[in-house]
């Protein structure tokens, strides 16, 4: 049971106002969730709070039956919950391989880390090709791939991706979404935050709309895609028919 349960979580930065105002959400295992919502709705804050980078002010986060709210980031990672930040957050002056090794930082067994990296090289041959290059010399899409692979080193049960399409060209976005679909098919639970709401929902099972720090709407991704209000707000009218077709 890789279920993640978020109960009435309140969170914010420093002494600032609450960004999440009592948010509740249940993420069932082996499903892909796409979180959409306007700027400032608290999408990234939610992911950071789950990942242990931000302490919730109140509320509980339970993963696989264990309360993980208030754990440090490394402790959350060790429980199989990984996070890919929106700025990709690579180590610019390290090679691709070193970046992947850092992905296994919380694992003590360095041979196991190398073994995992070799497995990932099979899955993503392009990374093997570039393994000796410095991360800062890669293209945006390749960097995103490294960031995802870096999270995969830990063989997580659940992966959270914050705006993986940010700043990438449509063609590259397509590839990245293909990769994410691949992860879903491997049986990973996926929590995706996406500005590109339509694309995100297309590869997800469940759509969640955040507004003003609470969960305002939750339904199957298809229903969200077809909901007229959502279409008007986040998807743009012209996609209406397209979306309906894609859902078939």
């Amino acid at each position, binding site marked *: 049971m890789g279920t993640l349960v978020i109960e009435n979580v309140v969170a914010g930065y420093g002494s600032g106002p609450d960004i999440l105002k009592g948010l509740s959400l249940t993420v069932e295992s082996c499903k892909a969730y796409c979180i959409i919502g306007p700027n400032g709705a608290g999408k990234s804050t939610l992911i950071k709070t789950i990942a242990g980078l931000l302490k919730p002010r109140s509320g509980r986060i339970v993963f696989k039956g264990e309360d993980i709210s208030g754990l440090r*980031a*490394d402790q959350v*990672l060790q429980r199989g919950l990984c996070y890919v*930040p929106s700025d990709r957050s690579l*180590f*610019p002056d*390290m090679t691709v391989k070193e970046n992947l090794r*850092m992905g296994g930082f919380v694992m003590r067994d360095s041979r196991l880390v190398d073994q995992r990296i070799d497995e990932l090289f099979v899955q993503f041959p392009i990374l093997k090709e570039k393994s000796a290059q410095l991360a800062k010399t890669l293209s945006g899409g390749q960097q995103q791939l490294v960031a995802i692979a870096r999270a995969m080193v830990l063989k997580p049960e659940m992966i959270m991706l914050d705006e993986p399409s940010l700043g990438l060209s449509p063609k590259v976005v397509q590839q990245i979404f293909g990769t994410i679909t691949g992860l879903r098919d491997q049986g990973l639970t996926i929590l995706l935050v996406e500005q590109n709401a339509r694309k995100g929902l297309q590869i997800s099972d469940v759509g969640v709309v955040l507004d003003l720090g609470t969960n305002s709407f939750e339904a199957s991704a298809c229903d969200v895609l077809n909901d007229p209000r959502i279409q008007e707000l986040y998807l743009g009218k012209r996609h209406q028919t397209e979306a309906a077709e894609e859902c078939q």
Partner: protein
Amino acid sequence: MNQILQILMLGLCLGGVYALMSSGMTLIFGVMRIVNLAHAAFIVLGAYLAFWLFKLWHVDPIVSVAVTMPALFLIGIGYYRLVFARRADNPRFTDLTVLITFATGLVIEGVLAFFFTGIYRSTTPVYAQKSFLFGDFFLPQSQVYATVISIVLIVSLWLFLRYTRIGNAIRATMQNRNAAQVVGVNVTWISTLAFGIGLAMAGASGSLISFIFTFYPAKHVAWIGMIMCLVVLGGMGSLMGSLVASFLLATAAAFVNFYFGASYAPITFYLALFLILLFRPQGLFGKKVEG
């Protein structure tokens, strides 16, 4: 020609020591974005420690590295925990650290002056007065030893950063603090450790300079001036940069010393600083202007 070679050798011979002095400050800035203006004061503290070990128990100042490094390491950890650890998220953190560490330097200076007065000190092991002679050239033994040990320490630091798990975590934190957190590095712990290591380097520098320079409590002002120039010239936070800058400026200062007189040598450093600010504010190895 021989003369120029001789000056070059003398300059390079001091370069290693300068590199050791600036390496700790660079490490501390790189990992924590703390501009440690108390660094030279900690070096002077280390030098006094070496001085009293030498005077009271005749501990060779080179051997005293084994004491000054751990001592300053512990001081560094305590100082970081006490003053900085809980403030690392302050948006004005770097500016704040400049003033706090500067004030700390003054406090150390005052305390040292109160206990040990302003008398000029230095340790005097037998090799302090001897020179290596080969052909037409000479090199003071003390400077050779100090530079060799400095280089050994810097290489060890480099190996540690490069090939150990904790060293990797330190490097990762230097390159991208956020990303380090994302992959599970406990950056608070790493920062504390790095501050300790940075000050351990200051402690070692203190032991080594105790027999190549004279020192007194207020001496740290001149040294911090020099170290600052090396760190900025190298591009704040780049270890390689400060290493190159150290050898470059040590040699330049040796030439200025020879042609214009010893009292002009420090000016070399400050002029280099302003030239670099004028033409390349990000320093030789820096990436961008620090915000």
